[in-house]
């Protein structure tokens, strides 16, 4: 046990306590949290800053609006119902088709209008919101996932998580839904995370329930070596979120729409740490590198977006090792 502790330290693995005490508390101003915790605010802010986001179809604020949900949803064939303050993907309904007042989820299950109404009232009452506060419902455009993922995704929409530290994209992974995660791209719920090489955007090995995996458990296809399209845009999008929110330690979730390309889906002020397993690399090393060279270094300022991306690509390129096979 002691030797593993030493190894973790050596590899610069960031722990929860360390993340909370030295990064979230230090670099994330609590006043700015509502910007990322409320997806409606994030969306509005992103539009102001020219960051592409999925289109907003409607937003519901009261029970009476929820009663008329069928009328609100009537014009749309497919859409996503989302609590504005939900966490971990809870309370999100992805509807791929509407049919005779029934809504078909991506899993193929049908949701009746009354069930939809009930779900909406639960969301509004704050069932899924962090502090149990009253919430707002967003109706968003459904993303049509890029075909590059067909091989390695099972249902649902894969997304890209980028950890942005003081504007530098320091680590990234691709999150792939599985049968286990019921189409959700959340690692806690059984989605796969595949590391991404910051320099090239190529996938590395994957992590599934904290274990390294080389192939997708549902499709059996190999996970590594897949070049992610729009990598430059993805890096640009995520790095811009720093100026947008002023949060120093940020998780940016990006999805790739078949038509619109990369869209910023949501931001997270307390991003998880499994990304380290997917990348077989410690986050702490990279954070310290940025701190030493820019934050604590005298006379150094945080450079502009383009320079930051270039710097990150140089510094944080994946080491070409066979460690994934070990």
């Amino acid at each position, binding site marked *: *046990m002691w030797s*593993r*502790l030493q*190894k*973790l*330290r050596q*590899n610069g*693995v960031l*722990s*929860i*306590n*360390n993340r*909370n*005490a*030295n990064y979230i508390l230090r670099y994330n101003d609590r006043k700015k949290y509502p910007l990322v915790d409320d997806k409606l605010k994030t969306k509005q802010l992103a539009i102001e800053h020219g960051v592409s986001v999925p289109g907003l179809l409607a937003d519901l604020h009261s*029970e009476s609006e929820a009663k008329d949900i069928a009328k609100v949803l009537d014009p749309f064939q497919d859409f996503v119902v989302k609590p504005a303050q939900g966490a*971990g993907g*809870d309370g999100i309904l992805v509807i791929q088709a509407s049919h005779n007042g029934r809504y078909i989820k991506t899993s193929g299950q049908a949701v009746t209008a*009354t*069930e939809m*109404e*009930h779900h909406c*009232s*639960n969301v509004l*009452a*704050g*069932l*899924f919101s962090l502090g149990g506060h009253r919430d707002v419902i967003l109706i968003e455009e459904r993303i049509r996932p890029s075909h590059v993922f067909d091989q390695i995704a099972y249902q649902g929409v894969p997304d890209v998580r980028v950890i942005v530290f003081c504007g530098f994209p320091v680590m990234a992974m691709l999150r792939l839904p599985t049968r286990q995660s019921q189409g959700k791209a959340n690692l*806690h*719920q059984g989605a796969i995370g595949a590391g991404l090489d910051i320099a090239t955007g190529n996938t590395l090995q994957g*992590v599934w329930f*904290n*274990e*390294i995996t080389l192939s997708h458990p549902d499709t059996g296809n190999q996970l590594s070596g897949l070049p992610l399209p729009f990598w430059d845009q993805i890096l640009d999008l995520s790095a811009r979120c720093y100026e947008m929110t002023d949060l120093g330690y940020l998780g940016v979730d990006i999805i790739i729409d078949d038509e619109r390309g990369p869209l910023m889906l949501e931001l997270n002020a307390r991003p998880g*740490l499994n990304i*380290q*397993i997917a990348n*077989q690399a*410690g986050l702490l090393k990279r954070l310290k590198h940025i701190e030493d060279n820019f934050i604590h270094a005298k006379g150094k300022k945080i450079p502009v977006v383009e320079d930051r991306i270039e710097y990150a690509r140089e510094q944080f390129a994946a080491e070409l090792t066979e*460690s994934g096979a*070990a």
Partner: protein
Amino acid sequence: MSNRYHLHILVAILMALGTGLIYYQHTSLGVPLTPDSKEEIWTVEANLVFEPRNRPAKLSMYLPEFKERFQSLHERFVSDGYGMKVEQEDDNRLVTWSIRKPEGRQSLYYTVSLAKMTDVRKLKKPGATYTQKNQFSTPIEELAAESLTAEIRSKTADIHTFVTLAIRTLTDSDNNNAQLLLDKAVSATARASVLVRLLSHAHIPAEIIHTLPLKQGINIEPKIWLRCYNGEQWLYFDIATGDEGLPGDMLPWWKGDDAVFTANGVKNPELSFSISKDVLNSMQLADIRSRGRPSLFSEFSLSALPVQTQIVYQTLLTVPLGVLMILVLRSFVGLVTFGTFTPVLIALAFRETQLLWGIFLFTLITSIGLLVRFYLEQLRLLLVPRMAVILTVVVVCMGVISIFGHKLGMERGLSIALFPMVILTMAIERMSIIWEERGAAESIKTGIGSLIAASITYAVINIPLFQHWVYAFPGITLIILALMLMIGRYSGYRLSELARFKALGK
């Protein structure tokens, strides 16, 4: 970086303050470190009876002084209708009762409860010098004393041995000088008085001290001791054997060769001492002690509160300790629980139900609650009304379990009423959401995590020693506070992370 020092300084201050308080309470106020240490309390009753003589009566009695060895906890005089004053007379404390016209047989009482002093301090101000007034009256006695002194001095080295030998010589019936000085004085008091004069002659400060042996019983006889000042401290000598050292259970009462009481204008005065012993919890004793010695500390301590409130605080003060346990379990171990402090509240309920019953009842109630919650899901209720329904169902279930438990003769079932029902309701709601969103396994895992945390917390806050510490020593809570502050800056790995990141630990 400066706020790092800030925290260290704050922690250091709290630690120092906490330990300082504990040290003060323990050494000065005698608050015991263990909850069940017992101490003896002696109650001495002096009863003075007499018959009146149809004229004004005046009675005086020496009282014990509590300057060393013993501490008086409570003193009481029972003397209805008498004028009474307590005053200092030379080395003694004296009570004087007076009455103009007593009728019938009279009885006066002096009662004192006392306990051993916590810190045995030496009497600082002896002011002892030999006095010229204790002289032998005739030249022949003078001469005998002179030769006795010379004889004893030639055989001894210091005051200690001198006194011992002087006592033994005086009891020696073959020694002519000694017999001459004693002059047929046979009573212990008379002999002691001669000894004091002899020692004064040898320039050794000495006095008679009467002590009461602390043993349960009635008609306890005072015992005479001789004490001599050797320049540093008083040495006590048994005047029968000449042995030095006063046993721990001897209560010094009065000094000098006078009788313990004097009575004027009465017939057949009689004084008797009776002694009883009580064993008191050290906590209670410390309490009584601090009351006798009022200080800011005792004035503003929890034990100054009404007993009901004290009991509440005995429980409340274990909460920080429980919370500290949760901090450790979460920050160092990485246990997942419902809510942050829910396990502490469950642990408090376990105190009443006992552990196994507590776990059983908790599981039972949450299971029923979950079933109801799943059923309610079909009715599509709004969140708040649904929680209200679950809360009500939880209360009803608790009632039913209590009734059945009672009927079946399992009185433990009644203690379910102490479960924090609002907390239970929240736990049920959270559990069902996790159940739906993350699956049954995750939900049960969190539930078990909460139970483990509650059980560990219960085990810790239920240790009598800890309960005693947090209640008796406010300093402990300061130390707990300091520990919490320190944990607040812990940024190392959690035990669970060693497993989680095992793929990175190669």
